[in-house]
């Protein structure tokens, strides 16, 4: 199936540098965890999108009346959907953590001529995340 395109490299001629350009493999990100991590972070956007789609479907079901909504609920309980949601959840948590850890770099905060230490910029993000989660949990589990 794969077709090798074999190009003869031009021969060396005196005084003409002949640079070697290493091809970049399609799988460059597989070798090292840090690049894999980056690709996973990029990939996580797909799962964020899946949450959005589910929410949209939910809204549509709601509009189409109680029957449609219970069908929707039933669909959500299928093992496939639970698995998808679980995986999505993990990806979103992963995305949030990597993003929060990067935030101090994108937004350095200077107070009286000194740059705030990174954890002080990241910490409020985590704090807000925690508070929001607790509030939501309170609403849902009440």
């Amino acid at each position, binding site marked *: 199936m794969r077709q090798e395109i074999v190009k003869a*490299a031009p021969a*060396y001629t005196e005084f003409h*540098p*002949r*640079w*070697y*350009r*290493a091809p*970049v493999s399609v799988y*460059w*990100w597989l*070798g*090292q965890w*840090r*690049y894999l991590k*980056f690709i996973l972070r*990029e990939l996580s956007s797909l799962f964020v999108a899946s949450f959005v789609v589910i929410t949209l479907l939910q809204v549509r079901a709601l509009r189409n009346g109680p029957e449609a909504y219970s069908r929707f609920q039933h669909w959500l309980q299928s093992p496939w959907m639970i698995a998808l949601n679980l995986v999505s959840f993990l990806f979103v948590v992963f995305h949030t953590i990597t993003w929060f850890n*990067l935030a101090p*770099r*994108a*937004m*350095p905060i*200077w107070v*009286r*001529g*000194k*740059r705030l230490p990174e954890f002080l910029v990241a910490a409020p993000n985590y704090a807000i995340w925690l508070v929001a989660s607790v509030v939501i949990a309170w609403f849902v589990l009440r």
Partner: protein
Amino acid sequence: MADKIILEVARYSPEQDTKPCFATYEVPVHKEWVVLDALNYIKDKVDGSLTYRWSCRMGICGSCGMMVNGEPKLTCATFLSSYAHNGNKIRVEPLRYFPVVRDLVTELSDFLVKLKKVKPWLIRKDTVPLSQGEFLQTPEQLDYYKQFSMCINCTLCYSACPVVGLDPKFVGPAAIALAQRYNLDSRDQGAVERIAVLAHPEGIWGCTFVGECTKVCPKHVDPAGAIQQYKLNAVLDWLTSFLMPRGHNSQDVKP
């Protein structure tokens, strides 16, 4: 500690080879020796044709960057002993994503073209005679850009950046950080002139924030931070241009 170590060094001579191959050398390990000392040992005692760049041997000239076991490193600041446990083998290759001229020497002029494009010099609209003394700048104002002025142009960050590998036109971490070094300097008035190159798909918008440039930087410059800060300001700038069509100050974010 083993008293010998094996160095696998990438060799490529455009006059004889069509692509690089590895040559293996055994070198003694001394506590103080860095990878560069091992290369010098080979060149002096074993094979004088081994080709690489170096000069200061104190991590400041930026010449000696290479891939050491797959990671971009200044070889003058990388001890042999820290690899002695690794099956006693070290693999040395030219910096990734750059065309290879010969052995461990990469092609650099492309980087210099990019550097010049971002106008890394102090731009003033006025001319103030020297007799008026220095432009004042408080230590706090200096701190604001100092980190980005520490770049030694070693190009390790380009080798860590997959975007550079995939899109050779990307201006790249070091050049953008240096542009930001001047943008943030309280004496500079040239931020507007740098926008065209920076706020461009081959400038900051090319960056996908892998963040590895910052991790490999031997001088803690944080190019990733510089780029994200610029992005954030570009977005805010774009927003304010809606709210205040006139009178907003593009990318002028100095204290």
